[in-house]
């Protein structure tokens, strides 16, 4: 099959980028989207040009490294898959395919289709964990957890941190990403203990990183390759509200030191 590719090329973070058109031909419908880009890059290298840079690693949909805005949609046209799991059989022979990087203020472009998503790491560092050290923990079966609750926690924990939710959002909000981590841990007795503290810390961190506010359009859920539900945003909001109220209540007691 043959395709026309319109690809965003940008030398580095400071440079001005632009769309460049390429042609690829003889692509098998069974090849993956990245194998098609590999073929393009081999052509470019052998023709003395610099290949297109894009992030990719596991190529089986779990590491979350890959990104790409394909024809205006994060991870392309097929629901529930990452770009690396996309196959050329999902496109028609002769199609023009437009490929751009994630667009979000919090994700600056590094080169071509690669963006810097370390803001997501910083949000996790602010509190996306249970505060325990290695050693000195109870036996794994000492705290039973209802199966349904554990399954719900797993569903939220399946987030791969790719940032598609941010890219899909008109405001570039990170609420689904944070909501997934907050509810994963809040649903388990091990994580519930510091749930309020965690919510406050993570939201506070997010606010300082250039992400926008949630506008409740649910584009994030629609484009999430792992089907993370917007219910997690509701859990996040509820947790945030409770934590804020608790904090206000606590204030008088803090007055002791005044």
């Amino acid at each position, binding site marked *: 099959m043959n395709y026309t590719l319109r690809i965003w090329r940008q030398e580095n973070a400071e440079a001005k980028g632009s769309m460049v058109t390429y042609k690829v031909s003889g692509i098998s419908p069974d090849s993956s989207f990245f194998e098609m880009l590999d073929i393009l890059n081999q052509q470019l290298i052998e023709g003395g*040009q610099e290949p297109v840079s894009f992030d990719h690693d596991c190529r089986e949909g779990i590491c979350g490294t890959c990104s790409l805005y394909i024809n205006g949609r994060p991870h392309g046209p097929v629901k529930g898959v990452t770009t690396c799991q996309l196959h050329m059989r999902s496109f028609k022979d002769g199609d023009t395919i437009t490929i751009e990087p994630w667009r979000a203020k919090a994700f600056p472009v590094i080169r071509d289709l690669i963006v810097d*998503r370390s803001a997501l790491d910083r949000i996790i560092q602010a509190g996306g964990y249970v505060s325990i050290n290695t050693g000195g*923990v109870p036996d794994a079966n000492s705290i039973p957890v209802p199966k349904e609750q554990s399954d719900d926690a797993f569903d939220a924990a399946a987030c791969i941190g790719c940032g598609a939710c941010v890219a899909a959002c008109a405001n570039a909000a990170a609420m689904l990403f944070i909501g997934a981590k907050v509810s994963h841990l809040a649903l388990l007795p091990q994580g519930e203990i510091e749930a309020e503290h965690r919510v406050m810390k993570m939201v506070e961190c997010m606010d300082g990183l250039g992400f926008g506010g949630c506008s409740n359009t649910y584009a994030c859920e629609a484009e999430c390759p792992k089907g993370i539900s917007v219910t997690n945003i509701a859990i996040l909001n509820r947790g945030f509200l409770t934590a804020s109220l608790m904090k206000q209540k606590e204030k008088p007691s803090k007055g002791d030191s005044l």
Partner: protein
Amino acid sequence: MTRLNARIPEGPLAEKWTAYRSGCRLVSPSNKRKLDIIVIGTGLAGASAAASLGELGYNVKAFCYQDTPRRAHSIAAQGGINAAKNYPNDGDSIHRLFHDTIKGGDYRAREANVYRLAEVSNSIIDLAVAQGVPFAREYGGLLANRSFGGAQVSRTFYARGQTGQQLLLGAYGALSRQIAAGTVTLYNRRDVLDTVLIDGRARGIIARNLVTGEIERHAAHAVVMASGGYGNVFYLSTNAMGSNVSPAWSAYRKGALFANPSFTQIHPTCIPVHGDFQSKLTLMSESLRNDGRIWVPALKKDVDRLKSGEITPVDIPESDRDYYLERRYPAFGNLVPRDVASRAAKERCDAGFGVGRTGMAVFLDFKDAIKRKGHDTIEALYGNLFQMYGQIVAEDPYRTPMMIYPAVHYTMGGLWVDYELMTSIPGLYAIGEANFSDHGANRLGASALMQGLADGYFILPATISSYLADEIHTPRIDPASHEFTLAAEAVRERLNRYLSTGGSRSVDHFHRRLGRIMWDHCGMARNEAGLQHALGLIGELRREYMEDVRVPGRMDRYNPELEKAWRVADFIELGELMARDALMRRESCGGHFREEFQTPEGEALRNDDEYAFVAAWEAAGEGAEPSMHRERLEFNDIKLSQRCYK
């Protein structure tokens, strides 16, 4: 050739680790702050080690080539993690897990290390649960277990088909907490290109910032390699595209011994190769063998009719199906260890009974399991795997059997380490898949996650203090020293050499050719003539690479072709060492199958009198042949026998 001393503690096997910990030297909290440790890699081993060392108060620098530590390839591990909890009350124990692991490894692993691994396995599960890892649970609220290849008990803990992901996110959380606390500094998007030695001790590394291209020097009192395995030497493997041997190889070039390089695991259940342009292979978890039955047509005519499209697999009646694993190995059936299952698939395909477009595939059928347990149960157990398969192959495995074929998955070989996980270079440690120590010639399913986390959370943090106790008077290492300057210059020179070669072929072209040589001659079956031939071919490829590789772009900016050029050059050297190691070992054991050495039934035939040793190779410099050292394996608690799964 010298005999290596693994420095295994004295005393009965079951008491060695306790005795070691009671006697090992410690570093006081105030001194830990003054000690720097570099950890290379942030997979299960690296992230758990960096987090735990940070919690103890050491000053840690963690490096990964990915944009974030959470993406290390441990994330892709599917099936589960073993532990000797015996929650199902089916007869498991620490000794049984130890025994199964030694036997599964075909008696080529070190008893003391494996026993210790089984001992700490339970603590890993406790810790992961406390971190919030959402393992599968029963309706009563307690943890669920499943069975896995090479064992007759159910000791595998799992989180659907994404156990590696959930465990890595647990370790990543712990690591993130230490980054926030300031005990760990993260260096992402860095390739580690050299290990720096001062007076024979590991004192730092040379890294390349993949975004800016800057060559950086990082100094420390000790260096930990947690850089993973080298399956990508085969080009096509289940590893991530970026997985590479280069950090470990830089240590080998600096004198660290590399052990059993030819011990490679070919995983039996992967999606078959579909074309020449293919970039990687996708694993279908071994856990599928719990419920899936593996078969090929019993009749040649059905093979032809399948190929021509005249019939589909579901049209073949039970009586005309050959469930060859159940036929050959009635005791373990579809749950034989990976090496045995892989060879059996190859045997059937080589005999002309393979299916699929290339004839290099066998069926993995869920018909009976769906009938027995129901569609929903199968979906709950393997839903994500079925979805992944459907997406890649465009067939529905709920209706028609999956097609699978073996693929390179894991490397048991790696940097030689002693009982303390220290390599032959003082102050340089290797943990997780990067070392060689626990899986012998074949790793059992769900044991890689166990080993990576055992090393990182529990073993290394205990053993490294023995070394660092002597380092408390060593001031911070100066990265401006002469040794760092020399190493950084050599790195820059080598990078420039690739950029200025100006050849006609891309790095991938050479990598693909190397992979073909390795797969054909140093893969599932090996023989003397083939390995000799491979050595010649690799030598030629190496010369051609030096003269004809084309690497576009510049050194001082993001340049993925340059990254690959370095990695593939190391893979070519490694490939040569693997062939040499496979040639030397005139026996079959585990994943190493020498065609000249097999039983009349076609099973691996070990030679314990001559080869019950670890082969640890020492580099001799450019153009010279490496020399081999032996570590004799002593088996005091286990009787050596031919592995039998019949």
